[in-house]
């Protein structure tokens, strides 16, 4: 399955919300040393309802989600992002994991293709840290990001 198909799926985002809710409640339960029964009593719900949430199967009304969040002294923040934008961020984060490789490639290019031409002929006097720092800045430019993509994927 392609990554794009997965992150465009209902299952991916529903599961994300369910698992985040599970973690929020499970953290609270453990911190306060509560068992499921005690947790159910605190919320005024049945033990079965708690089990459902802690099994990662919560699929109730939005109002329930808000009630639960507030009961745990949390606010539920829901934000929306364009799917295209999300895909771009997602693929960028994949590229980011290859950061070291990318930088290594950049340095190779620098050393072999006359990066120093941008400087005066005594470029050897330019500290390596400055060159690296400039390269890091350049990486944020769109054309360089394109190059990074090429190396990373």
């Amino acid at each position, binding site marked *: 399955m392609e990554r794009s198909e*997965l992150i465009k799926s209902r299952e991916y985002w529903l599961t994300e919300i369910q698992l985040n809710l599970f973690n929020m409640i499970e953290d609270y339960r453990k911190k306060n040393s509560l068992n499921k029964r005690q947790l159910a009593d605190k919320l005024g719900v049945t033990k079965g309802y708690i089990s459902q949430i802690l099994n990662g199967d919560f699929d109730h009304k939005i109002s329930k989600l808000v009630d639960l969040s507030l009961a745990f002294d949390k606010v539920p923040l829901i934000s929306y992002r364009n799917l295209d934008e999300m895909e771009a961020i997602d693929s960028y984060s994949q590229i980011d994991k290859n950061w070291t490789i990318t930088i290594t490639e950049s340095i190779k290019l620098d050393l072999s293709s006359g990066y120093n031409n941008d400087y005066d002929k005594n470029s050897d006097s330019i500290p390596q840290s400055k060159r690296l720092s400039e390269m890091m800045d350049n990486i944020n430019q769109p054309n360089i990001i394109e190059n990074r993509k090429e190396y990373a994927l």
Partner: protein
Amino acid sequence: MPKFDSAKITAINARELVEELIIDGEGILTTYENKLSKNYLSEFKNILKYIEYAANGNSLPKTKLRKYGNSNGTTEYEFKSDHLRVWAIQLPSKKLVVYGGYKNSQDADERIFKAKTKQYLETVKEIDNGKKRINKK
């Protein structure tokens, strides 16, 4: 002796690398997905999300992830949906998906998973030992 390899599962984007075992050129998870009935595609997506969530260092409910014994010397995982089961092992720098099966054939599938894991780890060990012998020479 089967030839083992591994490849990144491209559908998963997590902090930790997640790969599928490749046996004689055939990706375990890819083959599993291709053979799945369309009815199970939705559950398969859930399983991929569970694996990604775990590979990001998060906890999952016991009903979704069973982490169990290291009979083969490594932590073993069973990712679960209503009808599907996917087994993986923890390696030093990654999770490796070793086998995919079904709830209604769980015991038999688990045995296959354990056998494949054992065979894979022994092969890796043999290769490592071979390298050490070469280095000594």
